[in-house]
């Protein structure tokens, strides 16, 4: 009944309504004077049926005001700097002699805009490693940052639970986007002589350039060394492989099980390392090495990043853009991604389904919508019960 008065407006009501919306818009945008505030309050008291809309607008406004710094902007800045360098403005000369970016620039001097965007997009790096052994405490998106001027080394730890992501700014200004179910650790020594972090799970890194202090990411099965660039590292315990994908610049990867060899990645490449199933709880790097003697050699492969048609962001780094994306991956692997993304658990009652290949890309779909979409192209049955998804 109360809604009827909204749809069946008279001309007079329409005029009055417009005043309401004018005042509402002013209120949301922080432009309301105190006289207008009284006027709005009075209108709302007289029209309690508007309460829902008022609530809807404040939700809408509150929500959009927080626009996090996007990886897209950071990549665009990289391209902007390159363009400036080509035109003779080198604004980053201080402290840098020859950096990773010079490789790209030599080849790109004559490249037109389009190609150059593609190259930059190719610089996102994804690293996937096995699991981390160093720290054991658990918490949900907590930051335990403590670095008082004492001699002891303090740890900072940031972690995310399933279904959530977060962004961290490190003391040197580098940014890390931490994907769901991940953990990043560093000590108060960070940045003093060397920049070192430990990662379990997946992170997209935008590292501030500093040739004197290399940035090193340790994961259970690989270490990644960079001078300043953007890349993605994926290293979830229990995953079959660890990956590092490079979008821009260059990185050096050392696989723990082959410490003598360094793998240098070029933009648009990723290194995939087959994890040893037992990496998750090794107490120390030493133990790790000893243990691997009895295990088979890891399989290491360098591959190109995967791009979906018409998409400038690779499948490997899509999550940092709030996109859940997969291309020709087995249902088991996809289920792992979805478990983290939606904070649910998958169970396969029909093992034949585990190996079917899936592709998909979801931005704001709910779990039910995503499952429906997958079912549409692949014949399987499923049931969602709370946080449990069963595949038949």
């Amino acid at each position, binding site marked *: 009944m109360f809604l009827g008065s909204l749809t069946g407006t008279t001309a007079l009501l329409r005029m009055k309504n417009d005043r309401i919306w004018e005042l509402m818009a002013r209120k949301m945008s922080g432009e309301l004077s105190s006289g207008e505030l009284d006027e709005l309050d009075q209108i709302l008291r007289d029209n309690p049926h508007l309460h829902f*809309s008022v609530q809807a607008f404040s939700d809408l406004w509150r929500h*959009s005001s927080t626009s996090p710094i996007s990886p897209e902007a950071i990549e665009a800045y990289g391209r902007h700097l390159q363009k400036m360098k080509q035109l003779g403005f080198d604004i980053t000369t201080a402290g840098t002699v020859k950096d990773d970016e010079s490789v790209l620039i030599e080849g790109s001097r004559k490249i037109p805009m389009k190609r150059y965007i593609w190259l930059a997009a190719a610089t996102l790096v994804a690293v996937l490693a096995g699991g981390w052994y160093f720290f054991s405490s658990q918490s949900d998106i907590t930051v335990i940052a403590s670095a008082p001027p004492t001699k002891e080394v303090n740890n900072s730890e940031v972690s995310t639970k399933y279904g959530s992501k977060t962004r961290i700014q490190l003391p040197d200004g580098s940014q890390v986007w931490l994907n769901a179910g991940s953990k990043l650790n560093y000590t108060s020594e960070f940045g003093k002589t060397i920049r070192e972090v430990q990662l379990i799970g997946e992170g997209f890194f935008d590292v501030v350039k500093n040739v004197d202090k290399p940035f090193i990411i340790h994961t259970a099965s690989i270490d990644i060394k960079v001078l300043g660039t953007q890349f993605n590292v994926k290293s979830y315990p229990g995953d079959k492989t660890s990956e590092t994908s490079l979008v821009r610049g260059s990185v050096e990867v050392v696989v723990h099980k082959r410490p003598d060899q360094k793998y240098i990645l070029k933009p648009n490449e990723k290194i995939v390392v087959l994890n040893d199933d037992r990496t998750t709880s090794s107490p120390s790097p030493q133990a790790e090495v000893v243990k691997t003697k009895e295990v088979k050699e890891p399989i290491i492969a360098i591959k190109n990043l995967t791009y979906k048609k018409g998409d400038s962001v690779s499948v490997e780094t899509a999550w940092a853009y709030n996109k859940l994306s997969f291309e020709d991956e087995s249902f088991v692997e996809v289920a792992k991604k979805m478990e983290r993304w939606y904070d649910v658990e998958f169970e396969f009652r029909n093992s034949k389904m585990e190996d079917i290949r899936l592709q998909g890309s979801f931005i704001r779909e709910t779990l039910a919508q995503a499952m429906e979409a997958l079912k549409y192209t692949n014949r399987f049955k499923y049931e969602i019960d709370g946080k449990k998804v069963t595949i038949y």
Partner: protein
Amino acid sequence: MPSPTEIKELQRRLAVYDDEAAYRELFIAFYKPLQQFAFSFVKTRDLAEEIVSDVFMRIWEKRGEMETIHNLKVYLYVSIKNTSLKYLLKQQRQVAISIDELDVELESFLRTPEELMLTAEMMNKIQQTVNSLPPRCKLIFKLIKEDGLRYKEVAEILNITVKTIDNQLAIALRKINKAVSVDLERVLRNN
């Protein structure tokens, strides 16, 4: 987006110290809204990015004068508008452009509907409504709600009056209200 005081401080660092970190911060903070604003004129992403890049290149060249710019935010938007129009002219695509022909891109505001009392379906509806607003209305709605600009700033950037902004936003809100109410009505009926 940084606060006006923070922006002022970044301007100062840029002017006094040639501070690259401050420059970077400004670029990154403004990139997305400016790129979207440029896009509404030139209608291609590559070109929109190039325009932002050009404008920021001039900021670097003129960094010494940064402190004399009263409202950098307005300055940036106006520069984007002018540069975009210059590009269009150069391409001879158009001699003049009216705000009513702009192609406004909006951020999706569906990031986490579960945090809101609105259902995803309703948010979808709102998004559709906003997307189908007339260009002028949509642009003003975007600049105020999404980019967080003040009424006075938008008036200055688009060369319109504050009264026009009031009117256009009232139109937007009335339409959204209608979409949400109809939807709610249906939900209630079904129960």
